[in-house]
């Protein structure tokens, strides 16, 4: 099956959902269900659209890397829709557009098309964030997002003027064959990096994150911090691995920038006492770690880290976002939350411990492996920063968990539906099972990304 259906069907349903508001929520469920099932049947390889062969037409590209991204994003999106669609019916059309944008970002092999999907998913995210009822922060997000995508487009157009193509694989091939000096490519690459960095929450382009996520309830929190973050990381990873391929002094600058992002993110999370701020600063640090791993060329462990983070952040933002909206945001007012909700508490604890990278959980396996590979590459500075950040992360997460489990005062009155609890339990089980049974993870290695082989076949 052609992967275009993952984009076309939700788009058709989005148009239909405008006609009748009554059926709109069902259309969202139908669209996400269709994508979650259909993604297992799509054919790998290059798919030209409209009969225009590469490099003239737009193409979609599917390999194991894309498949993993599609599976994570669509299944998490389905979970968000199942949990929240009842209360967020008016966002039905926007959710479908968001689904279109996210699938398009993962599938497209054309860099201008990527900009279009970036804007589609961006506009959907701005509208979804209006459900926080904080229009000023939504406006900030819109302005930052628009500047980011403008810079990406600016960089892309300069790149087009230099190499004469917009197709990702063709660009990689042309850069190699035309022997364009790397020094002249730095400007477009940096502009594109900054443009995507805004959406990927990288320091210093992430001023919007605090406004959006510190006021986010379960719906916006889980969709922006989990689904969107995973998609952008997958897209960013592909561009870093094949197009940017940072080297020399620029590699050093980018690495230091990302390390500063990790340190500051963890320090800010450590210094705050608000539950949602802890999560959002932690996700800033985690986003920097993922991009850092891609910059260092660690494909598979970066991908596993994206997946583990997306699942853990989904659990945390669903639980904390919901509780914080009902009560106050301060940890002290949420203390003892899990005394009444033991299942939710256990799921959250597993997600948190996996994020911290404790043994028995999948986070540990991922952390150990990437630290080992970095040690083999003698990247001691990165290892020291990552280990220090893990220690800081451990302290503030344990402090948060202790507050949420134990309380001497009256426990907050928050209700979680049974369906939500069941979903959270499945997610937590996933993090636990893959932490103990390690064989499935060793099935994949860095060869999940097959663009280089595909370029050799095509050109």
């Amino acid at each position, binding site marked *: 099956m052609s992967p275009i259906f993952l984009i076309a069907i939700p788009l058709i349903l989005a148009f239909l959902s405008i006609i009748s508001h009554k059926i709109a929520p069902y259309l969202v469920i139908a669209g996400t269900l269709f994508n979650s099932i259909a993604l297992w049947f799509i054919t790998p390889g290059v798919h030209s659209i409209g009969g225009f062969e590469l490099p003239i037409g737009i193409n979609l590209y599917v390999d194991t890397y894309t498949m993993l991204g599609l599976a994570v994003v669509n299944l998490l999106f389905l979970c968000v829709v199942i949990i929240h669609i009842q209360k967020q019916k008016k966002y039905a059309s926007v959710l479908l557009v968001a689904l279109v944008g996210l699938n398009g970002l993962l599938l497209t092999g054309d860099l*201008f098309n990527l900009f*279009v999907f970036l*804007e589609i998913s961006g*506009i959907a995210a*701005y*509208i979804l964030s*209006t459900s926080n*009822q904080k*229009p*000023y922060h*939504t*406006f900030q997000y*819109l*302005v930052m997002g*628009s*500047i980011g995508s*403008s810079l990406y*487009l*600016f960089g892309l*157009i300069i790149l*087009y*003027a230099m190499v004469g193509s*917009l197709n990702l694989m063709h660009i990689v091939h042309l850069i190699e064959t035309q022997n364009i000096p790397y020094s002249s490519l730095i400007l477009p690459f940096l502009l594109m990096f900054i443009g995507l960095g805004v959406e990927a929450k990288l320091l210093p382009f992430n001023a919007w994150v605090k406004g959006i996520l510190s006021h986010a309830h379960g719906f916006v929190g889980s969709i922006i911090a989990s689904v969107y973050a995973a998609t952008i990381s997958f897209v960013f990873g592909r561009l870093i691995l094949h197009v940017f391929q940072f080297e020399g002094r620029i590699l050093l600058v980018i690495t230091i920038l990302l390390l500063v992002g990790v340190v500051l993110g963890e320090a800010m999370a450590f210094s705050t006492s608000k539950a949602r701020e802890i999560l959002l600063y932690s996700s800033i640090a985690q986003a920097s770690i993922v991009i850092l791993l891609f910059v260092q060329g660690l494909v598979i462990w970066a991908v596993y880290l994206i997946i583990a983070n997306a699942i853990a952040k989904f659990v945390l933002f669903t639980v904390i976002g919901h509780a914080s909206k009902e009560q106050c945001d301060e940890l002290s007012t949420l203390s003892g939350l899990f005394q009444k909700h033991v299942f939710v508490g256990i799921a959250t604890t597993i997600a948190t411990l996996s994020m911290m990278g404790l043994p028995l959980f999948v986070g540990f396996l991922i952390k150990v492996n990437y630290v080992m590979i970095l040690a083999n590459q003698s990247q001691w500075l990165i290892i020291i920063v990552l280990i220090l950040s893990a220690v800081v992360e451990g302290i503030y997460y344990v402090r948060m968990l202790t507050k949420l489990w134990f309380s001497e005062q009256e426990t907050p009155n928050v209700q979680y539906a049974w369906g939500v609890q069941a979903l959270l339990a499945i997610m937590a089980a996933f993090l636990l099972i893959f932490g103990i049974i390690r064989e499935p993870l060793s099935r994949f290695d860095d060869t999940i990304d097959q663009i280089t082989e595909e370029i050799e076949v095509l050109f």
Partner: protein
Amino acid sequence: MIQYAAILMMMIGLYGLFINRHVMKIIVSLNVLELGLNLFIISIGYVTGGIAPIMTSTHATSALLYVDPLPQALVLTSIVIGVGTTALGLAIARKIYETYGTLDLERLEDK
């Protein structure tokens, strides 16, 4: 040469975004930035002495000097996206005014 003018326009837009503390002025600055970018895209396709990239009975060969048609197609998409973002920005600006009673960011940050 026209590229420098377009980049200058983008810089003016960016400068406006950094110094303005009013929602409407920020939207205008964003538009100036996008307009500069669109002019830059169009200027990339310009070829001195080139003709419109359409094959006609008088120009029935592809060997002639045509301007690059691709940036023209790209800029159309970019303009449409810009209009969409501006419309959404204005809708949010209206919501900001309804909620806080002001469009001045200095006063908004206190609320």
